[in-house]
């Protein structure tokens, strides 16, 4: 069983975001990149499958700030093989471009199962998984929280709104968009990540050209202007608590 996990680096929302001077993209000087949270769940799901059924887990990440740290952390958690995609993934690169490039390269790795996060907070042209599946001619199922292999098929749990879960069967090879791994991504001590830095090898794959067609054009990007903002209560906890209690009284809660 050969499992590939594709990880996208996204802006860390803990940091302030700024739009670049031409107003069409985020200002890269202000962005700190981190692995997409749903992709982190995809790595965890891959490791869980490996522990249950035995598998080789390969993690593929575009070469951006923070990508190597993310790869070593994945190795410390149990990933077997690390591949860094070399190319210009900042700026106007979008999911169509990344999916198209991966669609050409990934078949070489002969995957049985491809996992990626169901979405990323900066997706503007669809999420990566369904685009990648289509470019590779494979079936795709997203919003997956639970994967069990059965021969050349996988049984997966797909989440729908309202808490309804569909248990579905999908022929392999396939691409799955992971909403949540069956358990929270495991914590690894920094000492193990440091060890992975010494022992794990990062392979490199050149992506010479990114074709961004297929996404709607961006003419303006800006910070969301706060329209009607909440009425803010300031002061010490006693004063704020008084104001909240008053709101509760006004609404008949107390």
């Amino acid at each position, binding site marked *: 069983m050969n499992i590939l996990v594709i990880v996208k680096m996204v802006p860390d*929302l803990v940091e302030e975001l700024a739009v670049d001077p031409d107003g069409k993209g985020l200002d890269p000087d202000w962005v700190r990149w981190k692995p997409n949270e749903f992709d982190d769940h995809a790595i965890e799901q891959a490791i869980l499958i490996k522990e249950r059924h035995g598998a080789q887990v390969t993690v593929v990440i575009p070469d951006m700030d923070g990508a190597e740290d993310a790869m070593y952390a994945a190795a410390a958690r149990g990933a077997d093989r690390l591949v860094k995609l070399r190319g210009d993934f900042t700026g106007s690169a979008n999911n*169509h471009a990344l*999916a198209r490039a991966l669609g050409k390269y990934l078949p070489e790795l002969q995957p049985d199962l491809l996992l990626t996060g169901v979405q990323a*907070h*900066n*997706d*503007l*042209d*669809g*999420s990566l998984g369904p*685009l990648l*599946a*289509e470019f590779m001619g494979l079936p*795709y*199922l*997203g919003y997956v929280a639970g994967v069990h292999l059965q021969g050349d098929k996988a049984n997966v749990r797909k989440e*729908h*709104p*309202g*808490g*309804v*879960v*569909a*248990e*579905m*069967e*999908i*022929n392999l090879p*396939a691409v799955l*968009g992971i909403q*949540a791994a069956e358990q929270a991504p495991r914590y690894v001590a920094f000492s193990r990540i440091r060890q992975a830095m010494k022992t794990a090898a990062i392979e490199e794959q050149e992506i010479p050209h990114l074709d961004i067609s*297929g*996404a*709607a*054009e*961006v*003419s*303006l*990007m800006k*910070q*969301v*202007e706060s*329209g009607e903002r*909440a*009425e*803010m*209560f*300031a002061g010490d*906890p*006693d004063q*704020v*608590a008084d*104001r*909240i*209690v008053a*709101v*509760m009284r006004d*609404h008949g*809660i*107390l």
Partner: protein
Amino acid sequence: MNKDIFVIIEHLGGEVADISYVMLAAAREIAPALQGEVVGILLGGGIENLCQNLAADRVWLFDDPRLADYSPTTNLHILGELIQQHAPRAVIFGDTSTGAEVAAGLSARLDLPMVSACHSLTVGDQSLGYDSRICGGRIQVQGELPSPTALIAMVPGGYNPDSGRSAVPPPIERLAIPHLEEPPIRLLSYIQPETGDVDISRAEVLVSVGRGIQNQDNLEIVEELAEALGGAVCASRPVVDQGWLPVSRLVGKSGRRVRPKIYLALGISGAPEHVEAIGGSQVIVAVNTDPEAPIFNLAQYGTTSDLFDLVPVLTDHIRQARSERVA
């Protein structure tokens, strides 16, 4: 050139999903300026009764027992042929567990431009524009959707779903199902949600926690607050993913929609996936140390007090208020 707007109507468990009415409301608003019509499209088995209140100029049905269970590959096949045949000006999908994957798959398959997280649409001089929100609702993006056909994945928030409902049933046409191969994805069963100890969708008072709660032990002060209020504790996705609260307490896109009298949001940033499920609350009070957190755009009241300082004090004040009332 075809100027119609196709709306892919979503339904689950014999009910039309709310997002479908939002999409119809959007389509109705732009269709006159584009001089096109709104065409609602449904795929399923035994679904004609779902069309009665759809505010569409026409409804096309792919109604067949083989379509009773959702399979993305089947939808891709049927809708791909339909879109190629008619080349409508736009096709609106829900940015949801079913619509998002079909829209993106069609964008790649048919080489059509796509935008996701679409909040609203605008029509200029024969042009069609989108307005999307990304990066947890912090960044607004606008642009044009090129001719002849663009695919849109829409989130709630930009339109009143009531504008997508009609008292007059639309004309319905049943379309022939194209040849279908055995799909590589099959439904085995539906697992209905367990409501567990409390049904948060019916609770009148909800104390909701997000990532800001930091760890499971800290839930204790929140449970005390909920108890003092006679309410229930619920959570956003990160808390449930950590296993700190069961999935029956999840509020958001893939969890429950809630309509309490008061929703107290503690350490919740206000990501779109969460916010879309709490809009029915009568009043929202948000506590978050980040003054820029998008939750303050939705909440009526807020504070940047640290929740760990505030919550125990608030619990005391509420207990006091209750005992004064009893006295």
